């Protein structure tokens, strides 16, 4: 089996995204969870850039820029603000312990590998491995949504799931509508982040009255 640099690097970046997904599951502090999410988005940016370069596909650069600007920077900053302004619990509340969820996570990864492995025959190795990695990230995101109690961590789980989707999308040569899908997802994410905001206010004050929050009330999010 010969390995080209294109293969190695994209595979490695995909692997880092996956490891960061595990880090999200492992981390117990909310701020660190947000930071790891940002890091994951940045790794994804690098993966998109690299795929764009090695496939010669310009639209991947657009995807990369969107990923970096929105998910690497804007959303984490917004989440940090939300945590600070709403004075949320800094500890992650889990429905299932960290270690059992890690074990489940590995089981999910094994499942992803088992599911994707039979496709050996026809598709090229690159797509196959990327698909296995991406599916793992998707399943881990799902797991995080299930095993975490608070809305914010669930949302981060959702967003890391979405990172897995983008990872799958950039790995396939000539996937149409990539940018459009990325933008559509971005809108979804932004909406969800606002959703968290409103939801958390309700959880906290039992009303959505923005006057409870002087600072945020003025900025009218």
């Amino acid at each position, binding site marked *: 089996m010969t390995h080209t640099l294109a293969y190695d690097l994209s595979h490695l970046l995909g692997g880092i995204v996956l490891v960061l997904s595990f880090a999200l599951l492992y981390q117990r502090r909310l701020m660190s969870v947000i930071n790891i999410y940002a890091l994951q988005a940045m790794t994804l940016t690098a993966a998109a850039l690299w795929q764009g370069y090695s496939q010669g596909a310009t639209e991947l650069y657009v995807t990369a820029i969107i990923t970096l600007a929105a998910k690497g920077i804007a959303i984490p900053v917004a989440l940090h603000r939300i945590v600070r302004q709403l004075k949320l619990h800094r500890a992650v509340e889990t429905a299932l312990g960290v270690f059992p969820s890690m074990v489940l996570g590995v089981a999910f990864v094994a499942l992803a590998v088992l599911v994707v492995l039979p496709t050996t025959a026809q598709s090229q190795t690159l797509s196959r491995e990327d698909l296995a990695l991406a599916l793992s990230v998707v399943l881990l995101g799902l797991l995080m949504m299930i095993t975490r109690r608070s809305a914010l961590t669930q949302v981060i789980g959702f967003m890391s799931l979405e990172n897995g*989707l983008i990872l*799958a999308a950039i790995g396939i040569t000539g996937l149409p509508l990539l940018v459009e899908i990325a933008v559509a997802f971005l809108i979804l994410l932004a909406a969800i982040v606002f959703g968290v905001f*409103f939801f958390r206010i309700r959880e906290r004050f039992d009303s959505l009255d923005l006057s409870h929050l002087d600072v945020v009330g003025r900025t009218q999010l």
Partner: protein
Amino acid sequence: MLTELLTPPAWVILLPLATAICLAFVRDHRQAGWINLASAAGTALLSFRLPWQQTVGALLLVDPLSAHMAILTAFVGFTTAWFSLGYIRTEATAGRLDPWHLRQYHALFQAFLGSMLLALLSNNLGVAWVALEAATISAVIVVGLSRTAEAVEASWKFFILCGVGIALALFGTIVLALAATPILGPGLPTMTWTSLATAGPQMHGTLLNLAFVFLLLGYGTKAALAPLHAWMPDAHAEGPTPVSAVLAGSIPGVALVLILRLRGLLVGNPEAISPGPPLMALGLVSILLASLSLWRRRDVKRFFAFSTVEQTGVAAFALGLGGVGATFAAILHLTLHTLAKAAVFQCVGRAAQLKGGQRFTDISGLLSRNVPLGLTLAAGIVAVAGIPPFGLFTSEFLVMAETVRLQPYLAILLGLGLVIGGWALITRLITLCTGPETPNPGPAVHWTALVPAWLHLALVLLLGLAMPESVTAWFAAIAEVAR
């Protein structure tokens, strides 16, 4: 490719979307209501021409299936906009929605309608996905409009569950594109229904299976098939009634159409799993779970939301049976149920305004002083329960007949579910209409407000009493396309 957007079929999509943008700038909610109605009427009129405008393009696909569903969605959109005119006026007078929320409501209503039509008429899986996502976001915002704790929680649940569904569907779409790439080459064709259909038989079986599982889970969430239905009752109970009426029919309808097209791909491929059993299983679970849950509901809108889950289950089950006959029955059932359920929700919305609450303890004895409303609601419930003069009896009978022919043992479960569900509906009908009367704090309901519901029920009745040759031929053509 983009010139396709200027052809007549595209107008059906562009009109509501353009109206949505305009409505965002209209301050007066009365004016907005009329514009909303006019645009919805225009969309419905435009959609009636779709069967004669069948096209297959890179972006749009107008075949009998999509044309039919588009007409249905546009028609329900039109009658609901009509209904919403009076309903929203009452809500605004009662002070439950302020002007800013009403502006959002009208704009989002049209945006929702336009996105649904786009999802139906698009020939591209990716575009359909984006459209469905846009529809979800608009519906979520509308559900949360009233800003009560329950409404926010409902819209949050709706958002998260459908968000996950939509994410899984995207993964399925990507895998499908990956499976198609070796045959169709990179580019737009890998996401186009028509070219996928030609490539279907040669695709890699395992990848196709993987795509199917994810798409089924994703769009199954949107179709509110059990056990993925959790968002539906909350969203129905908390959203403004017009939205419940549209939601009840269109989102599951659109999702089922997508699943139906996907079924065609799998059936054609020798290596792929049979799509029937998973669909039948999801359908049956929905029917049984929902019909049993019906007995424990206290909230009227939630009750009817579970009934929607049950009826969507029937359609999904019929789709799983396979074959032209069952598909015919499924499409017919979906159509009739969408019409009947929208009528029921319109009545329930009115009744809730009249009685000042939407629990069974609030709404009772409608027939004693609100005869038109009570009668219409009763007729609607009878129709949904699948009792003879109405068309749903025909469609359920057809589903049952096909089940007995193809899967005789499952007919027992199906029959059980339908009987339990129907029974629950009739039991509730009796308390709603003829129970002890509760006070009527809200404004009285004039019979003109019920005309849209009558229109729906008349259609359902007509199709139940006699099905003209041309209608049968039309449904057969749809089933043929979707085979």
